[in-house]
């Protein structure tokens, strides 16, 4: 089945219609991701990178909560019925805006990567706490371990369609978050679109071309039987991850970041 940009916009309109019964319990709907940036790849991009902000009372009053949840589920069902690639949207309650996950703030707050679809523009209220920022700035080290899991495919004699789809998803996720997490170690809070350039600028000697190639790989996926292509992209990404990791644990980079030092420096 072939999809167009219009299918995505139609799904978005239906989504907003579906949320109408929430009435006063709906504070805001934010859009982020490819639809907000205007770079949807029809049939490839997922629906729906939305963040639904709900009135705080809906979190503490049982009947209200159950009604709200029912509305959200119905909206999710309609998204699924579009046939487009989907994942569930995010939601939170108004009193949680000042404890948003630090890692996602750059995606939600910037005018370049998000836009208000409905209600109050709460983006300036989105804040993270010290704990969240600290974890975000350390996450790249476990992300490295998550990336390592792709390495098992370097030794596979064959790949199924299902496995290839999983690999693509993993590659796309790493492409999106690894540069953000790596730059965070050095207190450089960047957006997804800045990932490659900022990584190359921040960490001297790193060539991050593989991040660009991953997007091409996703749009024009090689056949499962083309093992060499799959191995090359995985190996190149792992090389990048290891190169960045080595640079991050290098003493010079530690010295650049007082906050990082405050977490790691020996007593």
């Amino acid at each position, binding site marked *: 089945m072939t999809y167009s940009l219009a299918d995505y916009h139609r799904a978005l309109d239906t989504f907003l219609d579906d949320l109408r019964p929430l009435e006063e319990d709906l504070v805001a709907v934010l859009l982020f991701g490819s639809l907000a940036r205007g770079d949807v790849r029809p049939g490839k991009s997922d629906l729906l990178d939305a963040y639904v902000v709900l009135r705080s009372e809906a979190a503490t009053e049982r009947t209200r909560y159950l009604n709200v949840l029912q509305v959200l589920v119905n909206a999710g069902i309609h998204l699924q019925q579009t046939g487009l690639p989907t994942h569930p949207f995010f939601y939170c309650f108004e009193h949680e805006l000042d404890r948003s996950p630090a890692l996602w703030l750059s995606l939600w707050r910037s005018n370049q990567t998000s836009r208000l679809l409905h209600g109050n523009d709460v983006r300036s209220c989105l804040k993270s706490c010290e704990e969240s920022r600290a974890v975000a700035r350390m996450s790249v080290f476990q992300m490295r371990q998550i990336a390592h899991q792709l390495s098992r495919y370097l030794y596979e004699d064959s790949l199924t369609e299902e496995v290839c789809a999983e690999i693509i998803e993993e590659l796309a996720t790493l492409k999106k978050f690894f540069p953000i997490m790596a730059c965070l170690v050095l207190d450089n809070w960047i957006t997804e679109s800045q990932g490659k350039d900022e990584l190359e600028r921040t960490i001297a000697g790193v060539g991050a071309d593989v991040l660009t190639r991953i997007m091409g790989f996703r749009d024009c996926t090689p056949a499962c039987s083309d093992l060499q292509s799959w191995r090359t992209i995985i*190996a190149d990404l792992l090389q990048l991850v290891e190169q960045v990791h080595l640079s991050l644990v290098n003493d010079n980079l530690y010295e650049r970041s007082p906050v990082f030092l405050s977490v790691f420096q020996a007593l």
Partner: protein
Amino acid sequence: MQVVAQNDSETFEQERNKVRDQLISRLGDRLESVLYYPHVFPRVDYRHPFAYGGFVVVFHDEVEQIVDAIAAAHSCVPPETALYCLRRRELFELSLPVFWFLRFVDHQMHLPWFVKYKGEVLFGRDLRDEIQLPANPRLLFHNKLEVCAHFLRSGVILELLVQGRYELLIRRLERQMKYLMASALLAHGEWDITLADVAEKFMRRYTDPKLNSIWRDFGQLCERNGSLPADEACQAAYEAAWLFETFLHRLWGELKSSQQGHDLFAGRLSPRT
């Protein structure tokens, strides 16, 4: 893949030794150590023996071209088994938290304690003393709450309700409540828990009657789970989501009160020097 019963310890030993021997054979002189650790909560939905723990493969500090070594290590270990690969000087990284999907956070949370105090050396140097414990486990508690608010609402509650998988949702939420309890206990330095005793230990430590009553109500839902007609199963799943949400809300309150007067960076992790 061969499926082995949980209580078949002889087969488990054989399988684990087979992995160890493959690691030694493929990685040989690049290996500093191979450790095995049990996991805090064995996975109940998957019966492969290694779903109960994982391997830590430690390379010499001098190994520079590490990608090949990592790939070789991963090819020796069954796909569903956790495997951490790092150099000796990077061991401190095992103790660092991550803001990511639930399964990673849940596996990683107790990792340093379980490697250090319950891990076994399968090969090479005993590095368990070099594992540093997080100086401020409240950070892990906070992270677990944040991950639940962000990923669980969307990826578990909404997703499973949309798919109509009500029984599974209740099971997943029960397990996540136990993980939340485990992270709350960790905030007080209590790490040695099991799936069977975590609720009891939690209730002893956190005496808020509301938390207790939510857990009791959730237990009643779990008892009926699996035996309900479709419409009642749906209703039960929504109720489970509500109970989970209130549990999460109360725990945020507990965390806030426990944080008063504490400095986030009072204790620090340090790389091996």
